[in-house]
């Protein structure tokens, strides 16, 4: 009888231990037991970086706006209000492209393939098209170009780049080769965005033999947009409506 009790006690204890372990194991969060590929990690990292940068930007914007509000609140007489309004006007002009700009950047000169023999399947491969200009423009914008002009035409938010037969139409004006693209921004990144391997500019230059010359310049002048927009359909919405 004494031995039987001991046996039962041991069985009881160890069964308790077993039940305990099993329940702990069952209570674990098994959903996190997923496979994570390196790609997913990279994508998530990028997402996090983007979002945190966005948050940072918004925070600086808040600070900026608060300062602006303070400044506006502190204005008392008419002349200071006038100067603030002028400042705002200048800022808006700069942002919208109605202002001449200068600064460091790059100048790209693009010309059709001048060689006698044609490279591609047909002659179209040797000619610069609107889509080529658009792609390069996009690359420049990604590289942080702050002001861009093509053959003197300032690229505006509403500028179109359209095929016009042998030439290209920008801002409603026909432009022909050679295309001189000027961009203000960080010269190194801008240069890389056109010349680095596997960029669109690199392909054009080396695959299609389009003449693309890129030069870094310390001082580039980009003139303002000369026309003016007429809004027929778009109406501004007032804040708080």
């Amino acid at each position, binding site marked *: 009888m004494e031995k039987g009790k001991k046996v039962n*006690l*041991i*069985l009881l204890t160890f069964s308790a231990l*077993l039940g305990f*372990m099993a329940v*702990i194991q069952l209570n674990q969060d*098994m959903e996190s037991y997923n496979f994570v590929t390196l790609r997913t990690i990279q994508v998530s990292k990028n997402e996090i970086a983007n979002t945190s940068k966005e948050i940072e930007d918004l925070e600086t914007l808040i600070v900026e706006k608060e300062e602006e509000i303070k400044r506006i609140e502190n204005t008392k007489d008419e002349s200071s209000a006038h100067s603030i309004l002028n400042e705002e006007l200048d800022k808006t002009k700069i942002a919208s492209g109605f202002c001449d700009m200068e600064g460091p950047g790059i100048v790209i000169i693009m010309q059709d393939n001048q060689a006698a023999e044609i490279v591609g399947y047909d002659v179209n491969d040797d000619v610069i098209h609107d889509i080529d200009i658009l792609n390069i423009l996009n690359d420049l914008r990604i590289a942080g170009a702050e002001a861009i002009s093509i053959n003197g035409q300032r690229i505006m938010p509403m500028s179109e780049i359209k095929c016009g037969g042998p030439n290209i139409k920008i801002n409603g004006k026909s432009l022909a080769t050679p295309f001189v693209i000027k961009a203000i921004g960080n010269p190194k990144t801008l240069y890389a965005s056109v010349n680095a391997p596997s960029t669109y500019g690199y392909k054009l230059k080396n695959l299609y033999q389009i003449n693309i010359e890129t030069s870094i310049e310390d001082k580039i002048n980009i003139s303002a947009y000369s026309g003016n927009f007429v809004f027929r359909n778009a109406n501004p919405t007032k804040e708080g409506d």
Partner: protein
Amino acid sequence: MFFAIIGTLIGVVIGLLLPITYSPTYALYVSVAILACLDSVFGGIRANLQDKFDAKIFVSGFFGNAILAAFLAYMGDRLGVPLYYAAIFTFGGRLFENFAVIRRLLLNKKPTKK
């Protein structure tokens, strides 16, 4: 038999009350260890019913099998060979064997008592 069930229930209650968590990386090792423990408990019940129960063998088997099984699973992970299958087949097979013996003992017990 009866004590083993009661003990398991007590363990379940304690496990539900205590908030213990560990990394899901160890989940596989722990589950293999649990299988080994389950086998040991079944073996203990069987031995108890056969009146051959030895505390030393039971306790050493309980811990030794669990640790060996978890270690096998870990080594398998390291080497890229699923070694824990060895533990699963051994203990799983023995589990059913033990259970079969327990069933026979329990079912045959009643007529002999009468």
